[in-house]
């Protein structure tokens, strides 16, 4: 019973004291936080950099290795292709330099022939022998891509055995042996001249 009385008296005393100084206890927690913040050291520039990269030393080493590898790849690729980017020559200069010119691109030939069972391309680029076209997506448009050197090429499509030499995509159309041939001019870049 003695202990119970003591505890009761202590509780009443604390409540009485708290009631007397209630106004001083208000905002105590925020005041403590502010004081502690003022005592903490301010982050420097190095800390900011470290915050941007990996938080640990091992992580930062890994990042350095990746950066170094990337730089090495760029240097190697740059060394390989830099000569290609050097001085731009006009077509005539490039022709003279290449001794006639070499094409590096492809030329697309396509023809609508929805009901055809076979479409081939014949022309001066293949000794007028059949190069087959394909209609892979079955939309009726037959297509083939060829890599051609610079020059002038006459050609015609042969749709189920019938010659068709008036390609709307041709640069020009000429009469040949009573029929028509389409013409493509291929420039140095491999596309249409």
């Amino acid at each position, binding site marked *: 019973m003695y202990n119970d009385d003591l505890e009761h008296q202590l509780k009443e005393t604390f409540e009485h004291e708290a009631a007397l100084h209630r106004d001083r206890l208000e905002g105590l927690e925020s005041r403590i936080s502010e004081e502690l913040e003022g005592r903490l050291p301010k982050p420097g520039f190095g800390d900011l950099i470290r915050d941007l990269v990996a938080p640990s030393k091992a992580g930062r080493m890994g990042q350095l290795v990746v950066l170094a590898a990337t730089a090495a790849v760029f240097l190697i690729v740059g060394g390989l292709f830099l000569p290609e980017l050097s001085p731009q020559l*006009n*077509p*005539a200069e490039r*022709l*003279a330099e290449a001794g*006639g*010119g070499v094409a590096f691109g492809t030329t697309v030939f396509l023809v609508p022939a929805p009901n055809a069972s076979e479409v081939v391309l*014949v022309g*001066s680029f293949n*000794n*007028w*022998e059949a190069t087959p076209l394909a209609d892979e997506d079955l939309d009726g448009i037959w297509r083939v891509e060829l890599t051609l050197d*610079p*020059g*002038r090429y*006459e050609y015609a499509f042969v749709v189920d055995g019938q*010659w068709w030499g008036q390609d709307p995509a041709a*640069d*020009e159309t*000429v*009469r*040949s*042996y*009573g*029929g028509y*041939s389409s013409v493509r*001019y*291929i*420039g*140095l870049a491999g596309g249409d*001249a």
Partner: protein
Amino acid sequence: MKLGRTVIAMLALSLTVVLVAAAGTQVSAQTPLDSVEDLLRAASIPSTDRILDAFQFGISANTLTPQDAFLVTDRIIQATGVLADKEAVLLALAMTLEQALPVDWLIDKVVEGISRRVALSAIRFEVQLRAQLQAGVRDLLFSKGIFAGNPSSTGGTALPQQRFNLLVMHISDALGDYREGGGSPLDYLSVYSAVEQRLAYLGGSVILLQDVELALSRVEPAELGQALLGALE
């Protein structure tokens, strides 16, 4: 005794290998024109020797490849037609080669015609006309002071053979296509326009721009028309 048989068998095998190898060497030693000669002689083309000489000259002058020589001969021989037409087409090519003029565009015209199943007589007409036209254009350029070879002391403009040949070939082809399209050789402005358009397409990519400008600045419309007319006569 058994050892002796083994040695003899090995010797026989070695001899066989040597003989096969020798035969292979013989085959590979065959020149590209041997195949062409075989075709011509098998078809009994009367001017075989002249044609072969011209082909050989063309190969040495880089105006003909052995592959093209075989291709065009084979197509002509295989085509349906009389012997005279076959020989005439081959001779048109041979005469072009003898003059060191470009022949690949004429070969292309022959091969196209055969592929289109055009009568050999029509192919003969077209190729002879174009070969004639090319010689006329060559002469026209000569008359305008445009030459192939070393710089001239007479004030002419000498172009390397390949560049000169490109000019001659494409001007001739443009004239040939113009005629085949029904154009009149007497419509000089249209003749000139056809050539101008062809060279404009090719200038800067296939033919040097300076060569295009050189030709167009020196050749008159009427002269191109006359060159076409001359080939038709």
